[in-house]
């Protein structure tokens, strides 16, 4: 059995309570949400926080999916499983269900949270790629109140985010625009493994032409990467195999994978291309199916 170092533990009863504890305890404290990233690191003693602030009792306050006319808001404590099972969410953003189907396994999905996934800021994190694809923004709360940042601002590097020591991520907001759909493609070495590469795509059509499109990749750079160059190349064009090919090529050129146990940098670049094309194709097909 792998055992963590000694740690003090407290359960937060509200977001304000959690933030109060963070302010009092400073950098030695860590929030634990689902614990599926933090606890393995503690057991391997890669992380040894002095205090754990358990926010699982805040599921009532921060576990929600609200689909509104112009925006979807998801609480930070929403669990993978809830994201997977929400029909309402799949209706507007099918990319969530696509991704959740291939994130980890049921045990992890029962506990792991949206907030934990984003705050872990692992370059292979699938939900980060989904949020990047959808142009989400992150609501961060501290003692002084709330601030909202874009995904680009949220990520500062591998395992580093804009959330400061005495702050929490509380919500994700995603703009809803008409005429769109989305999809997620992932290649893994084995079910439940992290991505070798994954790609999310979101496309909005207007009169048969691409009004806007976004692509987000995981595991091919320091953070999940949004690709403005791909969006620029797609906007105003008619969907076609050549266009997907071109978008894929751009995606491959605009990422920076490294060789590791999951695969060679060349192969990952190839996947960035292949999966970008597949995700775009599927997004467009979904729009067309809907009619």
């Amino acid at each position, binding site marked *: 059995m792998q055992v963590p170092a000694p740690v003090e533990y407290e359960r937060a009863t509200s977001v304000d309570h959690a933030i109060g504890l963070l302010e009092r305890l400073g950098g030695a404290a860590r929030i634990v949400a689902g614990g599926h990233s933090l606890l393995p690191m503690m057991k391997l003693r890669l992380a040894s926080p002095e205090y754990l602030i358990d926010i699982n009792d805040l599921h009532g306050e921060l576990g929600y999916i609200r689909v509104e006319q112009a925006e979807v808001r998801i609480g930070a404590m929403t669990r993978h499983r809830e994201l997977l099972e929400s029909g309402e969410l799949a209706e507007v953003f099918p990319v969530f269900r696509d991704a959740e189907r291939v994130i980890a396994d049921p045990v992890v999905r029962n506990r792991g949270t949206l907030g934990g996934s984003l705050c872990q800021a692992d370059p292979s994190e699938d939900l980060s790629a989904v949020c990047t694809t959808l142009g989400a923004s992150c609501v961060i709360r501290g003692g002084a109140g709330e601030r909202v940042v874009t995904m680009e601002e949220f990520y500062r590097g591998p395992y580093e985010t804009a959330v400061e020591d005495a702050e929490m991520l509380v919500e994700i907001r995603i703009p809803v625009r008409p005429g769109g759909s989305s999809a997620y493609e992932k290649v893994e070495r084995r079910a439940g493994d992290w991505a*070798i590469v994954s790609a999310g795509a979101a496309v909005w059509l207007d009169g048969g032409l691409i009004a806007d499109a976004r692509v987000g990749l995981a595991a091919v750079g320091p953070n999940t990467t949004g690709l403005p160059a791909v969006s620029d190349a797609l906007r105003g064009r008619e969907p076609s195999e050549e266009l997907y090919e071109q978008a894929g090529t751009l995606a491959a050129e605009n990422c920076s994978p490294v060789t590791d146990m999951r695969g060679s940098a060349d192969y990952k670049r190839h996947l960035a291309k292949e999966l970008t094309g597949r995700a775009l194709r599927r997004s467009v097909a979904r729009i067309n199916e809907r009619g």
Partner: protein
Amino acid sequence: MTTTDERPAGFENNDHKPIGHGRMLRKEDPRFIRGRGNYVDDVQLPGMLHCAILRSPVAHARIVSIDTSAAEAHPKVKAVVTGAALTELGLAWMPTLSGDVQAVLATDKVRFQGQEVAFVVAEDRYAARDALELIDVEYDVLDPVVDVRTALDPSAPVIRDDLDGKQNNHIFDWETGDEAATEAVFASADVVVSEDIVYPRVHPAPMETCGCVAEYDRIDSRLTLWSTSQAPHAHRTLYAIVAGLPEHKIRVISPDIGGGFGGKVPIYPGYVCAIVGSIVTGKPVKWMEDRSENLTSTGFARDYIMRGEIAATRDGRILAVRTNVLADHGAFNGVAAPVKYPAGFFGVFTGSYDLQAAYCKMTAVYTNKAPGGVAYACSFRITEAVYLIERIVDCLAYELEMDPVELRIKNFIQPDQFPYRTKTGWVYDSGDYEPTMRKALELAGYEELRREQVERRARGELMGIGVSFFTEAVGAGPRKDMDILGLGMADGCELRVHPTGKAVVRLSVQSQGQGHETTFAQIVAEEIGIPPADIDVVHGDTDQTPFGLGTYGSRSTPVSGAAAALVARKVRDKARIIASGMLEVSVADLEWVKGAFHVKGDPEKSVTIQDIAMRAHGAGDLPEGIEGGLEAQICYNPENLTYPHGAYICVVDIDPGTAQVKVRRFVAVDDCGTRINPMIIEGQVHRGLTDGVGMALMEMIAFDEDGNCLGGSLMDYLIPTALEVPDWETGFTVTPSPHHPIGAKGVGESATVGSPPAIVNAVVDALKPFGIRHADMPLTPSRVWDAMRGVPRPPV
């Protein structure tokens, strides 16, 4: 699940209980299913302390100093022990299973990342682990030897400078077969094909890691050790030899074991640490490895770099096979194999084919990696041998543009050639290969699959069909040839029938999930007619069972299974004499029908085995010269190994865009001779096939250039899940072993041995449009993609 084995009526109701061989549910399962298994980590003793081991963070370094004072000052720590302290006790080094020595705790140098450097005994697991951080070790880091190909370079650092006069990293050279005769055949052959074939380092990765609870009673000088051991009796003797404890004062108990696969055959330093910890503190001490420790420090498997060569006629007659092997044994030669077989049973690399000549030369070397080379369900290196021959035969088929099935059938050893002596000296006991192959072809619909493949290829799809045919050599072994550190590989067995006709059979082998409590009860039941439910199987406790060498190399049924059948016959022979007295007829006038003797020609006059048992223990006279009681004991020395065989067919689809391999179908037809419990056999086969998918597609213990192990967790070292495996399709043929009392052969490892080549052959077949003849395991998407672009890379 599909199977050609007809399930008997009543099976679906789970109520089929044969008196003897046949499909029945496992007797041990109720306790496992209800969570009532009793594993080493479940053992709790009053006052028990916990041991944790400090391990080397680097692959190769001289130890400059170790400061344990801070750890000793920890309030919950009871003892901190280093290699220096063990040296004083004469326990710093211990023998390995292959005549080398291994450091229990490093004294001079560390030789692999994860090597044991010191241990702490503390009041709980947490404190023991915390105290490890308080030990300060200063290392003088040395260049490591990581690439086995350069280990013998004169400039390579010498790893084992502890061995007197050792100037290089060479362990042994070994050869088998006839070099000159093989060369002559190769020189005149129409076709010669050669290929470099790597079997990467993999790990058994059992669900339960290794561990023990050691309790040394100072007053009685008695050591009781609950340990994750596949071979409790052999371990007891080795502890007696290593620690100088009298053997009658040592009791080794292997309770339920959560998977072994060979990884629990060796004695690991951790067991010795726990024993020393108990001797030093006077308290019971538990040591339980964590997952990373298990993956990085306990016995690995395989790690052979093989050059395979095959010679044939243009029309596909295989003439000879030759191979040159470079074997990476890690920092200590810890291979578990009979003494005369430093390369295990690799000599069966001639496969199932009738050859004119064969030759193998092997060189084994030290590297700065974990020691081992244990089984992992490999039947002593037969996995590597079968992989080599089945891969190289496919390479030949590729060159000859011949169907791989046709090529194999054309070269099979014929039924009338058995017993067949191979060109490397192995005597295959029995076999009838073609019907097994044909059955697999039929189950798979081979012709139809090939037609489908043509259509798919025309559409640019990548479908592959892979075939393998293996012959295993299991059931070590005849004591004239086989021993482990001087201990002969014969197995004892004892059977007692109680007065009421219930029985207990005691065995030396130790189940790690193979269903011994059922299979052995069935073997005895078949011979003596007592229902399996009435027969208790006792195993895994040296105080309660006769001596024998344990469970690995698929040896339990070939050796202990034979012992169980023979001991039951011995009891039956005695029962017959008692019955003759009871029925007042001569022994010759009695007939045995399962469970009872009756008078020939008068079936009404009979006594059951239960009646006889009561009489044997009861009042009244017994026939002259017969003692009371109904029990017997034997020690079975096998005459030969048993040679099961099988034909496997795998169908894969590869996504041309992502290079992901999907195993669509897998057909396995096994011939393990007499089948005792077909359900258990299928379970063993399913497990082994799943293993095969792991090795072929994802498993590998890799190292970086500094010798850091890259497979130290199950996130990095992948093992397959239900989602990677297809619905297994199994079938069987039956060719009994002529020398085994019930004709049974081993089957525990057949599927692990036979499946990797079938899967790899299927992947390579799918890649045929790219002109690929060979690609090494593990066939991860990235590596398949390399192959598709014409640059298949070896994994090391």
